């Protein structure tokens, strides 16, 4: 069973994702259509009618179609019942392959308006993302500094998934400090100060372990993703 990931997005108004989605020509064979990316290439004319659909109508149709395409639904190793229920409406979907592959092929020419040389730098950085994430393909150190290794970080109770370059850190302490700062603003909402958190990580074999037991260097070679979970004990 391949590892798949159920990703939660920010509470963006779904119409902004669906707007470019031509309901008359669903063409849901390609996962990339789910983001309305293919529809974006159609001329502006096609959009103007669709923008008047109501949120519910648009979302309802979208959901109905989604149910039939289970290829597009991906599950995480540790589904959290609580979250799933609360975040029903906020789901977005992504494929197991790096979605950036599909996007680079299908994006609207010249949009967003970013200069070519800047795009090249993004693409180089995205390549480093990809190599870091696809499990067994660890990047060898270069002589004059190592390549970035980006891993996803999720915090229990927080909708947004972050990405950090663990090559930037030298120890568990520095990593934890930075993560605390990154996620600090989300803590205040639901929890009181007595809630403790544990940093866990998924290793190459797919197991979820508590971070800190193995030496740092081994850790960065093995970590696939990070999750900050509440410690009720």
């Amino acid at each position, binding site marked *: 069973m391949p590892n798949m990931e159920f990703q939660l997005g920010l509470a963006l108004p779904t119409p902004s994702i669906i707007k470019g989605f031509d309901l008359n020509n669903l063409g849901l064979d390609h996962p990339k259509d789910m983001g309305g990316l293919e529809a974006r290439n159609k001329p*502006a*004319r096609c959009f103007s009618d669709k*923008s008047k659909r109501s*949120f519910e109508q648009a979302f309802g149709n979208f959901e109905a179609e989604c149910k039939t395409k289970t290829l597009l639904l991906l599950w995480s190793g540790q589904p959290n019942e609580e979250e799933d229920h609360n975040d029903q409406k906020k789901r977005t979907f992504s494929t197991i392959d790096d979605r950036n592959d599909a996007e680079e092929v299908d994006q609207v020419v010249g*949009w967003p308006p970013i200069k070519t040389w800047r795009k090249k730098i993004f693409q180089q950085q995205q390549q480093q993302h990809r190599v870091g994430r696809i499990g067994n393909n660890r990047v060898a150190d270069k002589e004059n500094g190592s390549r970035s290794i980006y891993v996803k970080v999720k915090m229990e109770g927080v909708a947004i998934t972050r990405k*950090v370059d663990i090559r930037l850190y030298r120890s568990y302490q520095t990593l934890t400090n930075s993560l605390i700062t990154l996620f600090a603003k989300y803590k205040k909402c639901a929890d009181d100060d007595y809630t403790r958190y544990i940093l866990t990580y998924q290793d190459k074999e797919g197991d979820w372990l508590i971070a800190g037991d193995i030496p740092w260097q081994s850790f960065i070679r093995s970590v696939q993703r990070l999750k900050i979970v509440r410690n009720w004990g």
Partner: protein
Amino acid sequence: MQKKRAYSFPDEVLEHVFSFIQSDKDRNAVSVVCKSWYEIERWCRRKVFIGNCYAVSPKMVIKRFPEVRSIELKGKPHFADFNLVPDGWGGYVLPWIGEMAGAYPWLEEIRLKRMVVTDESLELIAKSFKNFKVLVLFSCEGFSTDGLAAIAAGCKNLSELDLRESEVDDLSGHWLTHFPETCTSLVSLNISCLGSDEVSFSALERLVGRCPNLRSLRLNRAVSLDKIANILCLAPQLVDFGTGNYTTELRPDVLSNLTAAFSSCKELKSLSGFWDVVPAYLPALYSVCSRLTSLNLSYATIHSPEIIKLVSHCSSLQCLLVLDYIEDSGLEALASSCKDLQELRVFPSDPFGVEPNVSLTEKGLVSVSLGCPKLQSVLYFCRRMTNAALVTIAQNCPNFTHFRLCIIEPKTADYMTLEPLDVGFGAIVEHCKDLRRLSLSGLLTDRVFEYIGTYAKKLEMLSVAFAGDSDLGLHHVLSGCESLRKLEIRDCPFGDKALLANAAKLETMRSLWMSSCTVSFGACKLLGQKMHRLNVEVIDETEPPCSRPKSCPVDKLYVYRSISGPRSDMPPFVWTMDEEGTILH
């Protein structure tokens, strides 16, 4: 009987007076006072700016201004930056260099933007102008390091070589060795765009060491962090410095050397570069931060905590370029630390991602608008916006001169009310009476253009994408914006009516770009026929526009005023409509 000219000065006196008048606008005004002033002025004009290289021919410029020392030329339309202009479109500088080589032997400065520059052009420059001093190639392409070698070797008094954002064929890092040992005149060197191949570092060090007037040095990515300390020690007088890669192995001596090197640069006001940053080395900068007025972190993939630490040391900061890793929290910190901030540019770290990867929203921009009273220029990429936020921003910052907002997903509505963002942008143009440049995004109807036409009286450049409902939108802009010079539009339902109704307006502007709109080929032909001082160019890479019915919309349209008629260097996919209604090619 000869008219007695009372109160007239000898020509030399007038010339001397005119020499204090530097701005083009003023010079142009002086030249139309009377015939004799026209004559005197044209002989003593030393600097010429040509915003569109096809608006006038080199021969015409030389004929009118025979003693020019400095020229600035711009070529391709702005949307070329985003790959909307096919390769081979034009903008060649060689014809200009060719003519100037004979006419202006004392030419000192050439500044080019979005032009195609060949090695041949560079060699010609090196050969032809004995006192050549300044070469700025901004977003240019078509040349290699061989051409640069010719410049280095041939221009004995070179003071400025600035290749910002150009695409250079990096054949060899050894072009730097072509600067002779006698060259000590460099004031500014910007090679940040060069590829990652090795730059001859020892040659660079020697060059930097023998140029005591070097004020601005921007290195390329190939230079790693451990080398920077050496360079800075050789040039502690630097005012503007661009690092290379801000990364190297973690070694204790590197940090201390770097810290010492930076603190010895007492004049340093501007920093850029910062590719591949290792945050552990950022503290080396803290000693210079309080003097910094300009900081470009737009390649640095460092996260919000590190950015905040750095920025909170920069109390004098006027200009910040940064990635959206700064997030709303970082922008809040910026708003409280940097009260002198005038310009902010926030770029997206993951522009093609469907979901946000960072927490950067309208809130960040609102914080900055509240905390930074001097804010004038904004470029902001984000994923959501509200009318309320825009209204607040407009009220906080009535001094905006440049406002460019890019909401990444086209046609994104106000995420709270689901309404178009017409009212928000309307507030911007209404409150910011000095607004010169505006870029729109998000869900927008014809209403926003009505606001723009009504209020944006000083607006010179407008960029529009995926907006509007009908020709009325375009009509509002063309009929209302009195100062409009450049208008660029893509993917909007604007067609023939507004264009033809406002044809005369186009002669008062530098240029109009429309792509993926609904302008018909027939309308283009008509425009070209009627307006003799406009070049109406249709770009179509798939098939000739005349092979389709006249009512068919053209793919891309570029209209610009010109006194030199249709250009003669058009590639096969560009057609121009001329006076007789024939299609030239």
